[in-house]
C-alpha cells in the first residue's frame, strides 16, 4: 500500500500534533506519566526510566521492585539519549510508534476482513469508512494522544497487536507470528489473540491460494512458530539480564497483582479489600474469567475472526489486571472497522456518553481522593465501574450486532423483525 497524499497529510498532521504537544508543554509528559489512568505499574515510563538507570549501572533492573516491564525494552531505550535531558529522541520514537500503529490499522481496514471474510459476507458490507478515516480515528483519539505523550509502553504493545492483526489479515504468517509473540512478550495477555488471528490468517491464506492449506498442519505450524518465537525472546531476555528473575518481575506481577496502584480496571479495589486467604482463589477466578472469553467467542463467531480479536481487545480493556486508557483507545479505534454493524447497535449514545462522562469525572474524583483529601477511594472506584460499564456496553452491543448481522444473512426472512437473545 503506497502512501497517498491524503494519508501523508494525515500522518504529518498527527506527528505534528504530538511533537507540538511535547515541545509546547514540556511538563505535560511527566504530568501524564504520573496519571494512574494513563500509566500503570506495568507500562509506566517513569518506571522504565528507573529500570534503565539500574540497567545502565550494571545492576539488575528488577532489583528495586519498581520495574515490571519486558527486559528487551532496556537495550532499546538505552540507545536513546537520556530522556530527562534530551527528550526529543524518545518523543520521536513514541510518535513513530503511533504512526506505525495507525499504518497497521489502515492496512487492516483496507483488507476488508471486517465485513467480508472467507465464510461470511455481511449484508451491509458496503457500509464502511475509508482506511484513512479509521487511521484518523486512532491518531486523533485523545486517549491515544495522551498515551503517546505519557510515553507509556502500552503504545508499543498496541503497535504489536495492530501489526499482528494487519499481517494476519494479509495472510503473512511469519510476520504475524513475530508480531503476536512480541505483543505477548510485552504484555502477556495478547497471547489470547493468537487463536482468532491465526484463524483470520488461515482464512486469508485460503482465499488467496488455490488449494487451502491443511488446517491441522497450519495450526500446528503456527503454534510451533509462536512457541519458538516466544521462547527465543525469553531466552534472549534471560541472556541479557543474566538470570530468569525477570519472569517473576514481569509476568509474575501481571499474573499475581502484587502492585495495587489504582487504575481504571476492576481488580485493584477488589484485591485491596480482600482477605489474604482468598487471594489465590480470586486471582484464579479473575484470570479464568478473562481467558474464558477467547474460546467461547472464537467458536461462536469463527466466521468473523477479526471481530473476535477486536472484541477481545475490548475485554482486555475491561478485565485485565492493569488496564489503562491505552487499552481502551486500541479497542475504540478498532470498533470503527465494523461500521456495517453500527445501524444494528442500539446503545451507542448511552455508551459513548458514559465513556465521555467518566473520562472527565474520573480525574475529578481522583483529585478529590488524592489531592483535595475530601473524597475517598470509593469515589474513584465508582467511576472506574461506570467506565468499565460503558466499555462493556459497547462490547455487548457490538456482539449483539454481529450476531444479528449473521442472522440476517442466515435467515433473510427474519430481517427487520424483533429478535430475542436467549
Amino acid at each position, binding site marked *: 500500500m503506497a502512501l497517498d497524499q491524503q494519508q501523508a497529510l494525515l500522518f504529518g498532521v498527527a506527528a505534528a500534533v504530538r511533537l507540538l504537544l511535547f515541545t509546547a508543554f514540556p511538563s505535560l509528559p511527566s504530568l501524564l506519566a504520573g496519571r494512574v489512568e494513563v500509566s500503570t505499574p506495568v507500562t509506566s515510563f517513569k518506571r522504565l526510566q528507573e529500570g534503565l538507570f539500574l540497567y545502565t549501572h550494571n545492576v539488575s533492573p528488577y532489583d528495586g521492585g519498581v520495574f515490571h516491564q519486558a527486559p528487551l525494552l532496556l537495550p532499546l531505550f538505552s540507545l536513546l539519549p537520556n530522556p530527562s535531558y534530551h527528550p526529543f529522541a524518545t518523543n520521536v520514537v513514541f510518535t513513530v510508534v503511533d504512526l506505525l500503529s495507525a499504518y497497521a490499522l489502515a492496512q487492516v481496514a483496507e483488507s476488508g476482513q471486517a465485513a467480508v471474510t472467507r465464510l461470511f459476507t455481511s449484508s451491509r458490507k458496503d457500509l464502511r469508512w475509508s482506511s484513512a478515516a479509521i487511521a484518523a480515528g486512532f491518531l486523533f483519539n485523545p486517549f491515544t494522544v495522551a498515551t503517546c505523550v505519557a510515553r507509556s509502553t502500552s503504545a508499543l504493545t498496541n503497535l504489536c497487536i495492530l501489526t499482528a492483526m494487519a499481517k494476519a489479515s494479509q495472510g503473512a504468517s511469519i510476520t504475524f507470528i513475530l508480531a503476536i509473540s512480541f505483543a505477548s512478550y510485552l504484555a502477556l495477555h495478547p497471547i489470547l489473540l493468537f487463536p482468532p488471528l491465526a484463524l483470520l490468517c488461515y482464512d486469508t491464506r485460503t482465499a488467496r491460494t488455490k488449494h487451502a492449506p491443511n488446517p491441522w498442519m497450519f495450526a500446528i505450524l503456527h503454534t510451533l512458530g509462536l512457541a519458538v518465537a516466544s521462547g527465543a525472546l525469553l531466552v534472549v531476555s534471560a541472556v541479557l539480564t543474566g538470570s530468569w528473575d525477570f519472569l517473576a518481575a514481569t509476568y509474575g506481577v501481571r499474573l499475581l497483582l502484587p502492585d495495587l496502584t489504582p487504575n481504571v480496571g476492576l481488580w485493584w479495589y477488589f484485591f485491596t479489600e480482600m482477605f489474604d486467604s482468598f487471594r489465590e482463589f480470586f486471582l484464579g477466578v479473575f484470570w479464568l474469567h478473562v481467558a474464558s472469553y477467547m474460546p467461547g467467542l472464537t467458536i461462536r463467531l469463527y466466521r468473523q475472526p477479526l471481530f473476535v480479536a477486536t472484541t477481545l481487545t475490548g475485554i482486555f480493556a475491561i478485565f485485565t489486571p492493569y488496564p489503562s486508557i491505552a487499552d481502551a483507545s486500541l479497542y475504540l479505534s478498532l470498533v470503527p472497522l465494523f461500521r456495517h454493524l453500527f*445501524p444494528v447497535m442500539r446503545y451507542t*449514545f448511552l455508551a459513548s*456518553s458514559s465513556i*465521555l*462522562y467518566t473520562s*472527565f*469525572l474520573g480525574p*475529578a*474524583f481522583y*483529585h*478529590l481522593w488524592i*489531592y*483535595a*483529601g*475530601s*473524597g475517598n477511594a470509593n469515589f474513584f472506584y465508582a467511576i472506574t465501574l461506570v467506565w468499565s460499564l460503558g466499555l462493556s456496553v459497547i462490547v455487548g452491543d457490538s456482539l449483539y450486532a454481529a450476531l444479528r448481522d449473521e442472522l440476517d444473512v442466515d435467515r433473510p426472512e427474519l430481517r*427487520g423483525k424483533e429478535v430475542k437473545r436467549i
Partner: protein
Amino acid sequence: MALLCKSRVRGVLRPLLIRAAATLLALRKDARLLKVPPYLSALCIVVGVAWLLVLPLDEYSRRTYVSENALLPGQVHTYFTGSEHNVFRAYRQETAALADKSVEERTQRLSTILGAHNLKVATQRYEYHASGRNISDQNVYAILQGPRADATEAVVLIAAWRNMDGKINYSGVALVLTLARYFKRWSLWSKDIIFLISGDSTSGTQAWVDAYHDSHSPDTIEPLSIKSGALQGAVAVDYPAGPWGHRYDKLHILYDGVNGQLSNLDLFNTAVSIANGQMGIGCTLQRMWNHDDSYHQRLQTMLRGMISQGLGHASGPHSSFIPYHIDAITLQTVGDGWHDEMSLGRTLESLFRSLNNLLEHLHQSFFFYLLLQANRFVSIGTYLPSAMLIAVNFSISAIALWVLSGRPQTPTPNPASTKPPQPDQQAGEKANEKEKEQDKPTFIVAEIAGAKTLIPASSLEITERPLFLPLTFVLATHFLGLLPLYLFNHTPLPYLSYTFTFVALTTTLLPLLTATSLAHFQRPTPQERTLIQCFSLLLLGMFLAALATLNFSLSFLVGLLAAPLSFARASRNKGLSAVVGGLLLLLNPVVVVWAATLYFGQDVVEVLVKAAEGWHVWGLWTQVVVWLVWWPAWFAGSVVVAGGLVS
C-alpha cells in the same frame, strides 16, 4: 402451595408487563414524546433552584457539631493574660515603628525579635509576575520545636504584614510575636508550631506554602532553609488596629480557599465554639455583620458564600493552604465593641491547644458544606442535587436533540387519519399533480398473524447522522476559548481595559459572523445544527456535573446562567430568532461578567488583574471554566440561533 401462588401471580402479571412494554415501545416513535424534554429540562431547573431556596429552613439544615473527639474545644484554661498584655503592647509599638521601613529592614527586625525567643528563624524572598506587574516581598517565619514533638507534624500561625484590604496588620503581627514568645515557654506542645509573617495576604503565603512542599518555581521564589513536618492546620490573624489599639465587636471567620475548596468543618466549628462558648466573642461569616437568624439572612449568607466559593478567589492568608489539604481559617476582627487583643490571643491559645490534641489529620467532619450562620450548615448530600439537577437539564436536552436528529426529515403522517394529507394543496393546479404524487407519504403493508396494517415508510427509515461537521465545530469552539484565556492572563495592566472591550465586541459579533460564513461555505442542514447543539449541551452537562463535585457553587452559577441555552433553538421565524439571539447576547459570559462587576460596584480591570494574579500565583481555575466550558456552550448555542437569522 406458595410456589403455585407465585406462578399464578406471575401468570397474571406477565401479560400486563408485556402490554406495558408494548405501549412503551409504541410511544417511542410518538412525535409527542419529543415535546416532553423541554418541560422536563425546565422542571429540573425550577426544582434545582427551589431546592436551593429551601435549604435555609430548619428542616433542611443542621446545627454544627464537632465530630473529631480529640479536638475538645474550649476545655483548657487559657493563661494568656496579665503581663503578656504589656509584652503585646511593646511589640505593637515595634511593628508600628516598622511601617515606613524598607522590606529588608522590616524582615531584619522581625527576624531579630523572633530569634530573641530562641526560635529557629528563616526568611524567604519571592517574586511573581502577573499582568505586567511585579509582586515581590519577603516572608519571615520561625519554628517552635514542640517539646513533645518529633518534628513530623506542625501547625501554622500566620499574620500577613498587609491584610486583604492592603492595611498594615499591626496588631495581628504583634499578636503573633507575643504568642511566639508565650508558646515557647509551654512544655505541652506535641506538634511543632510555625509562626509565619508573610509579606502580603495571598502571594506571600502562596510562595511560602509552595516552597514548603517544594513545588515552587525556583527562579523567582527562594526555597525554605528550614522546615518542619507535615502541616496539620493553619490559622491566620487579621487585626489591623494601629499602635493605640482598637476594641472589636466580633470575629469574622474566613474559611474558603482557592478554587472553592473548603477547610474541614471541624476547624471552623472549633474556632466558633472557642470564640463563642469560651471567650464570649460573637462569630460571623461572609460579611454578614448583623445576622438575626431569619430565613432571609440565612439565605443571604448562603448566597454570599456560594458566590465567594464560585469565584474561587483567595479570600485571605489561609486560602493558599487549603489546596495542599491543610485545613486553614482566618480570624478577622470586625466592628466596634469591647473585646480586646488579649481575648483574641486567648482564643488563639485555646485553638492551638485543641489542634495540639489532634491525633490525625482533620478528616471526621465535612469538606463540602454551605454555612448559613456560624452554627448552622447544609451538608453536601442535601445541597448537591440542586446543581446536579441543573447539570442534568442540559443532558436531557442533549439526549432529546440526539433523538430529534435521528428522526426522519419528512413528517410522519397518520395512516388512520381521515383528512387528506395536504388539504391546502388539494385545490392547487393540476400541473403539480406529479410532484404531489411524490410528496404523498408512502405506506408499507405489514402482516402479523393474519392482521394487516399500514406503516408509513418514513417510520421504518433509519436516518444516518452526519457527525463530522458538528463534532469538528464543537471541538473547535472549545479550543477557540483558549485564545481569550491566554489573552486575559498575559495582557499587561495598561491594556487590560482595551482588551476587555475588544473581546466583548468580538464575542458579541462572532456568532452572527460564524453563522453567516457557515451558511455561506458549509450550508449546514437543520439536522447538523441540531447535532451541534446536542454535542455542545452534552459537553456542558458533563462538565458541570464533574465540576459540581469539585466546586458546587461555580457549577450551579454557570449552570443557571447557561440554562436558557437548553431552550434556544434555531427557528425559521426570523423575528423569533432575532429575539432569542438578542436574549442570548445578554447572556454572553463577557457581558455577564461586566454586569456583575457593575452590580457589585467593582472595577472590571481590577477583577481581571485579580484573575490574572490568581492564574499565575494561586493556580486559579475559574477562568478556565468560563472560557473553556461556559463560553463555548454559549457560542455554539448562539451560532445555532443566529443560523436561523441568516439562512
